[in-house]
C-alpha cells in the first residue's frame, strides 16, 4: 500500500538577483508500507528539499504530493502539521535533541501533540520506547551527558514513539563513527520492522545506502530510478 507518492514534483526558488533556481526537477517517487529506500546524492543535489517534500514540510512548485492517496495540498496547514505528527517520524543528522531535557522528556515530547490516551500515558510509553532502544538506564540523562550514539538512539526512540508509518532519516549516521553508525542503523531498521514502518534514508554513505532494498540517486534535482546496489 502506498504511503506517499511524488508525481512530477518540481521545486524552484528565486535567487537574490531574481533568477530562478530549480532544486527538484520532475521527481517521481513512491514509498510503500514497510519499504526500505535510500537516496544518495552530492551536497546541493536537492536531498534535503526532497526530504522536506516527503515530510510534508515543503510544498512543490509544480507536481503533486499524495499522502495515503490524498493530495497534500488539500490539507490545511494545521492539518498537514497534525498528519506529519501522527504519520511521519524524523531522524536528523545532528540528532536535534532538546537541550537540558532528559532522554525521557525528549522522547515524550512528540506525544505532547497527541490527543489520545497516548498523551496522558506519555511518560510510560516513552519509557518503554527508550528501553526498546537499550537506554532504559539513561532515562534521566540530558543530551549533554550522552554519547553521540546514545543521542541518536534517543532521537530514534523519539521519531518512533508515535508509531509513524513513514520514517525519514536525514544522514542518520553522519555524525557518528563507522561502527556506531552501523549499530544505529541496525537499531533503526529493527524498530521500523517492529512497527512495519517505511524507512527513507538520505545519505552520503554508500554502506548505509546499501542496506535499503530500493536505491535512488539525486543529481541536480533529478532522480534516477532504482540504482542497482553497489553502483553509487
Amino acid at each position: 500500500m502506498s504511503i506517499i507518492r511524488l508525481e512530477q514534483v518540481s521545486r524552484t526558488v528565486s535567487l537574490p538577483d531574481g533568477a530562478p533556481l530549480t532544486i527538484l526537477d520532475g521527481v517521481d517517487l513512491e514509498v510503500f508500507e514497510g519499504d526500505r529506500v535510500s537516496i544518495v546524492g552530492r551536497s546541493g543535489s536537492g536531498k534535503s528539499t526532497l526530504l522536506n517534500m516527503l515530510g510534508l514540510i515543503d510544498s512543490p512548485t509544480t507536481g503533486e504530493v499524495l499522502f495515503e492517496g490524498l493530495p497534500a495540498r488539500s490539507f490545511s496547514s494545521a492539518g498537514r502539521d497534525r498528519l506529519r505528527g501522527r504519520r511521519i517520524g524524523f531522524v536528523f543528522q545532528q540528532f536535534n535533541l532538546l537541550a537540558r531535557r532528559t532522554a525521557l522528556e525528549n522522547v515524550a515530547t512528540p506525544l505532547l501533540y497527541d490527543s489520545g490516551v497516548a498523551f496522558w500515558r506519555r511518560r510510560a510509553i516513552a519509557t518503554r520506547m527508550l528501553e526498546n532502544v537499550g537506554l532504559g538506564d539513561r532515562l534521566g540523562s540530558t543530551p549533554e551527558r550522552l554519547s553521540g550514539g546514545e543521542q541518536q538512539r534517543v532521537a530514534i526512540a523519539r521519531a518512533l514513539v508515535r508509531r509513524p508509518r513513514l520514517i525519514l532519516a536525514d544522514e542518520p549516521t553522519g555524525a557518528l563513527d563507522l561502527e556506531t553508525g552501523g549499530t544505529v542503523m541496525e537499531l533503526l531498521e529493527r524498530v521500523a520492522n517492529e512497527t512495519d514502518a517505511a524507512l527513507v534514508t538520505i545519505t552520503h554513505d554508500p554502506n548505509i545506502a546499501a542496506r535499503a532494498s530500493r536505491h535512488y540517486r539525486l543529481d541536480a534535482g533529478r532522480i534516477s530510478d532504482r540504482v542497482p546496489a553497489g553502483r553509487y
Partner: protein
Amino acid sequence: MGFFGGLATGVVGAFSEAWAEVRVHRGRVLLSLIGVGVAVCALTAVVAAGSVAEQALRETSERSGGRAATMGINAFTDDGSILPAEDIRTAFRTAVDRYDIGYASEHGYGEQQVRLPGGRQSVPTETVDIPFGQMHRVPLLEGEWFTTSDERRLAPALVVNERLWESIGSPDLRSHPTLTLSATNEVTAVVVGVTPSPSFDLAPSMFMLASQARALQSPEQQALYGTPQFEVWVPADIAEPLGARLSADIRGQLGDGVQVDAFRNDYGEQNAESLRQVQLIIGGIALLVLLLGALGLVNIALVTVRTRIREIGVRRTFGATAGRVFLAVMLESVVATVAAGVVGVMLAVLLIRNPITTEFLAQGITDVPPFPMSAAVVGLIAATAVGALAGLIPALVAVRVKVIDAIRY
C-alpha cells in the same frame, strides 16, 4: 477522542510545554521576573492599603457622622433666641412620621455623675434613640445595643465603652451589672452593652437613651448642653430633596423667625473620594513600573525565542501546529508572570498585614478588615495581562519560523 478531549490535551499539553520551558530556564526566568514581581507587589499593596485605609476612614466616619446618607437637622431663630428642645423634638418627630422615615434619632451630649470604684466621676454621655446604633453602625464588644424593651425599663439602660466596663471589673453582662448615677436622686442604671475602645480612647464614656437621660437631668443641666441634634438616615439618592422637604416641614411647624437646616453628616464619602485619588496616582506609578518590567521581559523573551528557532522547528516536525507553538510561547510568558504575580501578591499580604503597617493604616478602628480579595485579584490580573502582552511578540516571531530553515539553523 472527541473535540473536547482534543481541546483538553491541547491545553494541558501547551501548559506542560510552557512549564517545562520555565523550569529549564529558571535562572533567566527568575531574573527577568524580579521587576514584574516587585511591580505586582507594589500594585497589590497600594490597592490593599487603599482599601484598608478607606475602610478605616469609613468606619470612623460612620461612627461620628453616620452611614451614607445620614442628614443632620438643626433649627435656630433669626434673632438668636434659644428654641425649646421639646418644640424641635416634637416638630422633628411629626415630620419624620409624615415622611415615614424608619431611621431617625436625636443625638445629644451631656454628662452623668457615676459612682465608680475610684469615687464619683463625671462620665461624658451621648444621648440617642434606638435607631442610632444602626445608623452609626456602633460596634459592640459585649451585650446588645438598646432595644424597645430597654425604653420600658424602670432603671435606665446604658451602653458603656470598654474603659468604663473595665473600671467596674469587666463584669459578665448576663449578671445585669449596674451603675449608680447621681442625678437629682441616686438612680441605678443597668449596663446592657459594651462598645470597644480604640487605643486612643482612654476615658470612660457611655450612651443613654435620650428619653431616659432627660428624666434624670434638671432643666438647668439640659440648658447647659444645648439643643440636641436630630438625624435621619435615608437613601443617598433622595437625600437632597428629602432634606429640603424635611427642613421646610419643620420650619412650618416651628413658625416664623425660625430657620431649619438639613445637611449631610456622613463626611466619610468625600474623604474616601480624595483617598481614591491618591490611590489612583500610586496605582498609576505601579502600573508604569509594571510596564517597564514587561518591556524587559519582552526583550529577554525575544532573544530567547531566537535562540530556540531550531527547537521550534523540531517541534513542528513532531506535529506542533503554528497555533500550538504560538500558545506555548505565549503561555511560557504568562505562566512565568503569574508565578511572579503570586509571589508579588504574597509579599503584598505580608507587607499590609504585618502589625506595624496595620497599626499605621487602620488607626482608630477596632475591626481591621481582612486583606482585600479585590487587591489580590487586581495584582494577579495585572500579572497575567503583562505576561500575555510580553509573550505576544515572541509568540508571533515563533509562529513565523519556517520549519525547513529552523531545522538547518
